[in-house]
């Protein structure tokens, strides 16, 4: 009996803690330029954006996608945990577009600070960061559903 109670307690604590653990472990947020009017996005739309299939935001502004190099830890985590697409599959999708003239590759930047700065400066920009930051006058944190 004691054991069952203990297990039940463990389970409850586990379930309650799960959301916090996930947020803390990933700590990845999708960030857009403040000009982007969207506040939240379904995962499917985020996938479409990072697969370079979406050219315009709902208000018509061009979408500018910023990413880190394929083998950068943050890019790998973002691809796998948020988009749930392996980085090599994403690269394959971009390459097919680039070498068949049907689309563009995202803009690749060297490090996370530079990415953050470009997203803040570029209207219509979208990218990702690995820290908890609030929206401010230059950037907007997008909630992913």
């Amino acid at each position, binding site marked *: 009996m004691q054991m069952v109670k203990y297990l039940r307690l463990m389970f409850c604590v586990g379930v309650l803690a799960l959301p916090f653990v996930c947020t803390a472990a990933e700590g990845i947020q999708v960030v857009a330029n403040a000009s982007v009017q969207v506040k939240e996005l379904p995962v*499917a739309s985020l996938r479409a954006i990072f697969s370079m299939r979406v050219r315009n935001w709902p208000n018509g502004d061009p979408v500018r996608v910023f990413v880190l190099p394929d083998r950068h830890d943050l890019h790998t985590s973002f691809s796998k945990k948020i988009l749930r697409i*392996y980085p090599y599959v994403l690269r394959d999708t971009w390459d097919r577009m680039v070498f068949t003239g049907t689309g563009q590759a995202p803009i690749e930047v060297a490090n996370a600070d530079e990415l953050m700065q470009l997203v803040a400066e570029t209207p219509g920009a979208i990218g990702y960061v690995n820290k908890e930051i609030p929206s401010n006058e230059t950037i907007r944190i997008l909630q992913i559903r």
Partner: protein
Amino acid sequence: MKLSEFCKYASAALAMKLLMAFVIGTSAAASDELKSYQIHGFASQGYILTDENNFYGDSEDGGSFDYYELGLNAFWQVADTLSASGQLLVRDAGETDDGKLRVDYLFLDKRFINMDAATAGVRVGRVKNPLGFYNESRDVIFTRPSILLPQSIYLEGIGVREILFSSDGVQLYSDWDHGRHHTAFKVNFARTDDVSDQTRRNFFGGTGGSGGGSFPGFSLDQMKISDLFFTQVMDEVDGGRMRFAISYLTAILKADFTSPQLPAPLTVSVDSNIYTLSAQYNAERWSLTSEYSLTTTKFGFGGSESRLRSDGMYLQGEYRMTPVWTGLLRYDMAFSNRNDRANSDARDITAGLSWSPNPSWVVMGEYHYIHGDNGDSSLPNPDNPGGASNRTNLLAVMVGYRF
């Protein structure tokens, strides 16, 4: 406006744009105007060593470097729903390709539906033809799994690559998201066209007007490709975890031969339909790919007619040991006569290794054991004018760079 005129205007516009970009320089690259275009390119050099038969040049004797690919492309987002793109290509592959500069694709793309969950539009100009997973970008080492593609689906031997790759015409396309799926549909209509001297040589050995190659005493008067039509539906599940595709193409190739002994030109026609099924599973470390293709061909020779059904398939596994190293194993088999598989098979066992120290560079190496009763059909005819044997050991190495 005629298509050739359109191409001229489009290329002039694209060239102007590129020139402008270079003149203005990279310092202004942050402006919105300049971000609306991208330029990319690739270069790869191959080395092939074989025993018994030649593959892309004189590969039997110390190996051949007569195999390279160079490409430069530009994409310009003219307006929200209008883009222009083009790619110049130079490719040399033994006797089957000549290293001449050609326009791989050059088209205008107009989108009628431009939403985040669905698009539809039309591409006009020289468009890429969809066939299986790899056809549209098969000259780019970075978008194919191995140096040489499986011959059951991606024919090289009979020299029809020009017909398969891109066509002057129109492509209608659409793609849409629904639940876990992303589905893309394409259909290409190509105009009737004379085939190039290279394809004539690959097919019949001789050039137009002079000797008929495999038909001695005849001369090849004209050779046209008509009724060329491609279509493909591709479904991706869970962002590309699984991919499935059905492709179909049909084409009629007609050649007129003349001879002093004949009162009228003799017409040889090849009417082909190709159906291709493709499936792929992509896990984190490994990918499994398989494609099957069925070809039905109707040959017309003067007044007589004959039919042939051929098919083939391959099974391919890739394993990403580290982000830098990838291994590949593949079994490929093609049957030139489906009703007599035992005597018409061509098989290729491939083992490959790829090393990519960074995403811009790749070095690939692979070994092929090509055999079967019809093993010579996998080899490029023009490289073996004296005929080929059924068994070939082939080693290929290729270095590729892209930006």
